[in-house]
């Protein structure tokens, strides 16, 4: 039982961490997007910006993050590399992004633009911390502009989707160098705030559609795993019950001799089995809770996943969902009671006389 709950919770934890990383670093509680904006269509980015609506601007930094996405090019080793310039409000507290390096920089760009890139991007573009690279872009009027960008940090963005091909910078910098004061491509928000004029809301589900499909697959696999575990646990209970009947045939015989009919004895045994499984639940609780608590503190270290494309890598913590636990417990107890009943049927066929002598079952 512990195993079942553990397994489910571990998987939940994995998934939750995955989604949470997506949510924390990118999706938040959804995006208010400039209508027509499509992240997969870079040529249209600069047409899909507009000043952030006042209603969203007013939100505290913990509830929204304004983001501007534009096309740019870098030239590492004099080779062209098209990139996405992503400007994020530096004071926002909604998304967890490793942009501390940019915080201390002045809000005006002078000769060098401080930028942060991800590990993958760094490897791909052959850049490292402290390197300078020429960055070229178009401002809001269409004029070409270029400056040196200094990589102030090569950081680990838990989420690979926001790593490769992206140059991160302060929103005020991006707005300044592209002459787009106050403009955004989208505003990530903590909660859906109803419709906002001239913005289109995209929910977390829409933003993470493909990840969620993947997780659904995982759920299915978890279910299969669950079935197998159940089977094993079931066999075990079945066994125990056979053992039970075998060991207690004298008792059964006695009960029969005292006038209890087979059906009642069966009920008695099933009841015992049921109680035992309840006891097991209790035991699982007693053993499981400290175990889980311990696990919650340590976590499953999967830091070696750092560079995978799954947006999870810190320690995985269990995500125990009460409803799910309750549901699986109910199912488990139900199945156990049923399995406890199966071998007990034998009782009805017992010869009380033999049973009394302990020789009814061979």
């Amino acid at each position, binding site marked *: 039982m512990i195993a079942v709950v553990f397994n489910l919770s571990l998987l939940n934890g994995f998934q939750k961490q995955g989604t949470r990383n997506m949510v924390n670093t990118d999706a938040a509680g959804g995006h208010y997007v400039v209508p027509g904006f499509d992240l997969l269509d870079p*040529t*249209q980015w*600069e047409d899909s910006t507009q000043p952030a609506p006042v209603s969203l601007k007013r939100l505290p930094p913990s509830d929204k993050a304004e983001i501007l996405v534009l096309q740019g*090019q870098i*030239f590492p*080793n*004099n*080779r*062209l590399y098209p990139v996405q310039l992503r400007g994020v409000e530096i004071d926002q507290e909604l998304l967890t992004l490793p942009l501390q390096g940019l915080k201390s920089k002045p809000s005006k760009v002078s000769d060098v633009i401080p930028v942060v890139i991800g590990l993958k991007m760094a490897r791909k573009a052959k850049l490292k911390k402290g390197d300078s690279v*020429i960055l*070229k872009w*178009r*401002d809001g*009027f*269409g*004029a*070409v*502009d*270029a*400056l*040196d960008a200094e990589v102030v940090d090569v950081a680990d963005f838990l989420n690979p989707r926001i790593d490769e091909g992206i140059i991160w910078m302060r929103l005020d910098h991006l707005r300044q*160098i592209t*002459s787009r004061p106050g403009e955004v491509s989208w505003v990530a928000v903590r909660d859906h705030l109803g419709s906002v004029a001239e913005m289109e809301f995209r929910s977390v589900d829409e933003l993470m559609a493909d990840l969620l499909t993947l997780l659904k697959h995982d759920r299915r696999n978890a279910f299969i795993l669950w079935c197998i575990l159940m089977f094993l646990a079931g066999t075990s209970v079945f066994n125990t019950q056979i053992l039970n009947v075998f060991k207690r045939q004298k008792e059964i015989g006695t009960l029969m001799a005292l006038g209890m009919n087979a059906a009642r004895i069966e009920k008695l045994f099933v009841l015992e089995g049921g109680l035992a499984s309840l006891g097991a639940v209790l035991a699982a609780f007693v053993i499981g809770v400290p175990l889980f608590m311990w696990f919650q503190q340590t976590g499953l270290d999967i830091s070696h996943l750092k560079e995978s494309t799954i947006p999870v890598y810190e320690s995985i913590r269990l995500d125990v969902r009460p409803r799910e636990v309750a549901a699986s417990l109910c199912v488990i107890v139900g199945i156990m009671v049923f399995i406890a009943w199966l071998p007990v049927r034998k009782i009805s066929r017992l010869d009380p006389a033999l049973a009394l002598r302990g020789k009814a079952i061979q």
Partner: protein
Amino acid sequence: MKFSNPRSTSGEVKSFFAIFALVLLGAFGQGAFAQDIDPDELLRRVDDNLWSQTKIIEGRLIVDNGRRERTLQMQTWMEGVERSYSVYLNPPRERGVKMLKARSKLWMYTPRTDRKILIAGHMLRQSMMGSDLSYEDMMEDKMLSRNYKSSVEKFEEFEGVPCVVLLLTANDKTTTYQSRKLWIDPEKKTVLMEEMYAKSGKLLKNVHFKDYRPTGDRLFPKKMIFRDLLKENTKTTYEYDSIEFDAEIPAKYFSQSILKR
């Protein structure tokens, strides 16, 4: 030609230029005094030399990407600054490809597809045929004197020719290159070299104008070499074989109906 009416710059700058010019004069021992140069007028004269109401030009575009060199031969009809029409003559593969530009739109026609394709907006910023020029660069054949304010930056010898270096600043924020520098031979009113800068002042591209030849009453460069300075080892050369100024060009050359087989 007269260099009068200098644009008033700040006293400091002027005196700096005066001193600088004197130094240069000492060195080259010839002609133009800084005060005598009206940069705007000079730029207009340069434009006059390079521009005419209509032009028919046949030439070759040599694209060298550092690994391979390709030569495209084409014929171009131009009218004013906004309309031009080109047909590719060589290599055989590109023969019959036509390009028509009018205002900010570019249509391409290829015989293989028998279609005219409109290239507009951001697509214009792509490099043209792998060259160091974008479609936009090709189309932004604006008359410099109309789009930029100019000032004399310095005097400098360029490839043995004493030059005035003009700094051009765009009048309009939408101009692609917000500033340029021209190395102009003030005697001949010819540009020897041009540099294009980003808004921030970073140097992006340069063009060498070479082999000026007298053509009618003008001097026209036989060769222009474009370089994208952010990229390595690449250059694109345009070389004309024949050129005709102020020729009569029938209207059909600039109509979409010419984009046919």
